[in-house]
């Protein structure tokens, strides 16, 4: 039996992840890919899942989708426990996992949409108009009858997104949806994703390395590092937390050799560059006390300050900060 409920049950969180842990036994021993993470996603949210390579993004997504069995922890989508009732959960979720590789290259765009709709029990003959609308929205009308293998990588990526939309699930997981897309589509797709979230109440989870897109599209960002969540907050809050903490300092003349080490020991020195007669560094300072302390150290070292500029952080700065330095817990970012 394969029940399909048109109206999903009401739940506060459409995706709920609790104490999720995944350990693999590899050649080098036991590896913890995902380490006891928990988060909820509300209906209509667009959530970005970020992390450097090996942070556990893919394992997290595949475990949430029921494609990888967790070592421990629970996942539910629309109240359906994914790992106990996998088939039932798939009434509510679909995904683009490997972009261009997720479609049948020998089938046309239309045929791909029809096939994947049918795979979800939706009669494609009754959804012809909707499929045409999806094809039109994705700018594939001229290529609708072309086998996917003849399309560019970006277009195949669009077909994969189209097949996900054809499955008509309320939750979408999109792994690197912008990969290989042309400039025009990269510009248009965020608008389309926001339309899906706001007008069709779709809940969308995006993993991407493109910080600009995440910043432009997502309501909220979860940052993973070493299998753990190091930040989970709205994009605005994350930017606020890191606001006014980073400065670019320019010095005239060559500062004494010990200055760099002294600053690095006391503060978070983000980079350091010296020229023949100037030095420039980027430094993170928590509050005014640290700012004055830094200035005092510079004066004691007899360094001549040429300029101090406050850096407006973007999401990429936040991401680098979170994943390369000490972990910041969600509580810390919220404070």
């Amino acid at each position, binding site marked *: 039996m394969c029940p399909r409920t048109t109206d999903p049950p009401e739940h506060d969180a459409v995706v709920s992840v609790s104490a999720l842990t995944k350990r693999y036994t590899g050649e080098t021993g036991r590896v913890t890919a995902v380490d006891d993470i928990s988060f909820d996603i509300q209906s209509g949210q667009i959530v970005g899942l970020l992390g450097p390579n090996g942070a556990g993004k893919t*394992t997290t997504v595949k475990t949430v989708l029921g494609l990888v069995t967790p070592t421990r922890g629970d996942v539910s989508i629309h109240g359906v426990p994914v790992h106990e009732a996998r088939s039932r959960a798939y009434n509510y979720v679909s995904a683009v996992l490997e972009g261009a*590789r997720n479609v049948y290259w020998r089938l046309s765009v239309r045929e791909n949409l029809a096939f994947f709709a049918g795979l979800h029990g939706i009669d494609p003959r009754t959804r012809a108009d909707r499929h045409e609308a999806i094809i039109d929205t994705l700018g594939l009308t001229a290529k609708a009858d072309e086998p996917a293998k003849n399309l560019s990588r970006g277009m195949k990526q669009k077909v994969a997104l189209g097949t996900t939309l054809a499955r008509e699930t309320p939750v979408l997981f999109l792994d690197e949806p912008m990969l290989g897309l042309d400039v025009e589509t990269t510009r248009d797709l965020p608008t389309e994703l926001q339309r899906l979230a706001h007008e069709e109440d779709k809940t969308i989870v995006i993993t991407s390395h493109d910080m600009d897109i995440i910043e432009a599209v997502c309501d909220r960002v979860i940052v993973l590092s070493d299998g753990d969540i190091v930040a989970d907050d709205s994009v605005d809050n994350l930017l606020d937390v890191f606001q006014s903490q980073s400065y670019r300092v320019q010095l005239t003349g060559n500062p004494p050799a010990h200055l760099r080490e002294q600053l690095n020991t006391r503060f978070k020195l983000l980079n350091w560059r010296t020229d023949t007669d100037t030095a420039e560094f980027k430094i993170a300072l928590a509050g005014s006390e640290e700012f004055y302390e830094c200035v005092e150290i510079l004066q004691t070292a007899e360094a001549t300050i040429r300029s101090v500029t406050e850096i407006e952080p973007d999401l990429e700065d936040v991401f680098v900060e979170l994943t390369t330095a000490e972990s910041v817990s969600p509580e810390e970012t919220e404070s």
Partner: protein
Amino acid sequence: MNRHLILFRVIASKSVTLSRRYLVNTVVGFLTLYVFFALIFFGGQFVAEELISRSVGPLVVGYFLFTMAVSAYADLTHDLTDEAQWGTLEQLSMSPFGFTEVVAMKTVVNLLGTFATGMVLLVLMMATTGTWLTIAPLSLVVVGVLTLLPVVGLGFVFGGAALVYKQIEKVFPLIQLSFAGLLALPVQEYALLKLLPMSQGGHILQRVMTDGLRVWELPIFDLMLLVGQSVVYLAIGILVFRVGTANARKRGVLGHY
């Protein structure tokens, strides 16, 4: 429309679309089977004319069954490894119907295609040899399906294993070759051999096609044994496939290739 029928329809539609779009491949594949039979028949006549002329009937039936068995097995196992390589296997597994049902439905569609091409090949073989077998269509389909189900079971076993151990696909051709041996086993002399997949079915199908027996004219014990064998092999196959799928999910290698 019933949701399971929708699933059947889109899988069948995809299969027909691809066969038509790549018509040359389809025709060449079919012709290869026919030419290979012609080589066996005419070459055999050249080497051992008397032997071949005595066993034309069993040769036609055996080749018909062998090609169908290879097709039923290879369609299932190769589909799984191909889908993993294409990146669509995880998408199939994310169907509300469940991965096993989707794969089973693909197998049903493949079997229908196999039967359709098998029948055309059979007619061509009979025309080539000039030996027209007495074929009762219903009996042929019933016994044919029951004979092929254990092969499908084997397909599920090796397909399930391939989800976990990707290198196992290298032994697939060997398994296919073994079908010829299974069909030729002397089940009349050694009754225990009847328990092996296809051996009993192959023997019964020979009688249906060369002696013109109807399914209800077959010894009830032989028929029950064939039914039991089909059910058991298929059940074992599906069980192993499900265990393989669960294991692949545990290792995180379901979509790997």
